[in-house]
């Protein structure tokens, strides 16, 4: 019947130009990634020649102690940041979508700013803050810096979820005798929980991926994985990076698959996915 979604026999989006650019665009996105993966199994040091299949770069990677400590730091930072910014971001989202404050507009603007402002600006300003207050650069400064932009992302994701929340549910619960805490616990929380989870996941990933802000706010002994990769790129390219990269690509494929799997309803198509992941 009329519930055909965007599918159609009129072939919108199936023109020659659209197809060519789509295929070309996907090749553009994937060729570098595929090349990374292929060369991670190259026995030769040089990307210009194929020296046969080998796992030696994976062995090198596993034996690289500095890499492991970078991974450990990355995870410590990512998990701490996810916890901190999920709590603060959810509080901000709950407060802003459920109350009209005198300066609601201003609060919203401040909340959007860390997303809009280029990360390099945020990075140097945080560096100056830590320098100004003689705060030792290290894991803690990186976590605080990450939280300063992650809060906004978490808050926006949770607010998007709260926007779809029917206030009458809350009234119905109160009508049925629930007190305020029970309403929060049994009605609001279960409804926004997927949003909170998505926000936490987002904060975690932003943290793992971040290079610029970490680069400026980190100290001795708190190198993260992106910093480690960066220094490997800068001081002599080694095929070990291909191996690390391949594992990171596999990790992101696993993450996206997991989200696809959890979001069992394929009919909602793209938008719901975008909403829940990023």
């Amino acid at each position, binding site marked *: 019947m009329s519930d055909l979604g965007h599918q159609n026999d009129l072939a919108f989006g199936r023109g020659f130009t659209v197809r060519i650019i789509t295929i070309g665009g996907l090749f553009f996105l*994937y060729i570098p*990634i595929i090349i990374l993966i292929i060369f991670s199994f190259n026995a030769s040091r040089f990307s210009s020649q194929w020296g046969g299949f080998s796992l030696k770069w994976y062995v090198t990677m596993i034996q690289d102690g500095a890499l492991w400590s970078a991974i450990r730091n990355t995870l410590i930072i990512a998990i701490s940041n996810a916890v901190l910014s999920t709590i603060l971001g959810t509080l901000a989202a709950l407060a802003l979508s459920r109350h009209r404050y005198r300066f609601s507009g201003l609060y919203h603007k401040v909340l959007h700013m860390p997303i809009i402002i*280029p990360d*390099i600006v945020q990075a140097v300003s*945080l560096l100056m803050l830590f320098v100004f207050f003689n705060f030792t650069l290290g894991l803690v400064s990186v976590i605080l810096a990450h939280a300063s932009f992650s809060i906004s992302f978490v808050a926006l994701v949770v607010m998007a979820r709260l926007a779809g929340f029917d206030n009458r549910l809350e009234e119905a619960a109160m009508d049925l005798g629930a007190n305020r805490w029970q309403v929060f616990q049994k009605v609001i929380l279960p409804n926004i929980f997927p949003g909170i989870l998505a926000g936490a996941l987002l904060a975690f990933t932003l943290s793992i991926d971040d290079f610029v802000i970490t680069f400026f706010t980190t100290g001795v002994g708190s190198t993260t994985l*992106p910093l480690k990769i960066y220094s490997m790129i800068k001081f002599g390219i080694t095929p070990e990076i291909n191996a690390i990269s391949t594992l990171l690509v596999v990790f992101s*494929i696993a993450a996206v698959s997991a989200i696809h799997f959890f979001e069992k309803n394929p009919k909602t198509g*793209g938008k719901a996915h975008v909403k829940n992941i990023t």
Partner: protein
Amino acid sequence: MRIRESQALILPPFFFLVIFFILPVIIILVLSLTHNKDLTAGITLENYTRIFDPLYLQVLIRSVVYAGLATLFALLIGFPLAYFISFANSRLKMMFMFLVLVPFWTNFLVRIFAWLTILGRQGLINSFLLWTGIIQDPLQLLHTPGAVILGLIYGELPFMVLPLIAALDRMDVSLLEAATDLGASRFQAFQRIALPLSIPGVIAGSIFVFIPALGSFVVPDILGGSDSFMVGNTIKNQFMTVRDWSFGSSLSMMLMLAVLFGVSAYLKKGSGDLNMGEYL
């Protein structure tokens, strides 16, 4: 009925943001007005006038041009891609969304690094061209403006595609059917209906690409050379190498104000709400 006590919920997150977001910006602002971070020497605008020194102005202009070109190409590639995905049947759509999201989730550095393998002197393109005999000496592909723009397009493309898909998905397909019904060809339906109605998505996507591209430091740092450095590199140098924090701060303030001005001009126009949460 509202939970009054919860009004205080706003305090912890905003206390945090004041310390770790607003205060740092104020520090930068103050620094940018001092003579080489000497707080006692009074206020000066010399750090701002210095931006207009041809040496730095050139870098600023270059940054805007590179970011603009990256945005344009991302749009030219991203729109057809989003159009295709939005109208695909649900199985194909899921698959293509997956293909767009994997790079989106993959570490930015790693994705930029991949181009070193392709563009380097001993990279794949040069190896291939030398092998075919088309060229005798390797081409200089890396450390060029082209490499930087390519890297920016590559890095930011998913940020263009996702808001475009969201905008196209929101469009009622019966509008395109109606246009067809009234005699419009597939291209006319796209041109007169789909394109104008996806403008909010186009603008959102362009903002998501242009802003990070403008402030980019990683891409020119890895793929660029001294003639293709962008403002991000200059800022980094001022803070990490030259240690002229005051000038670095004024550049940062300029960049931030330009971005905020641009975004708020768009929001004022009322052509759409830049609701990031929707694409996130």
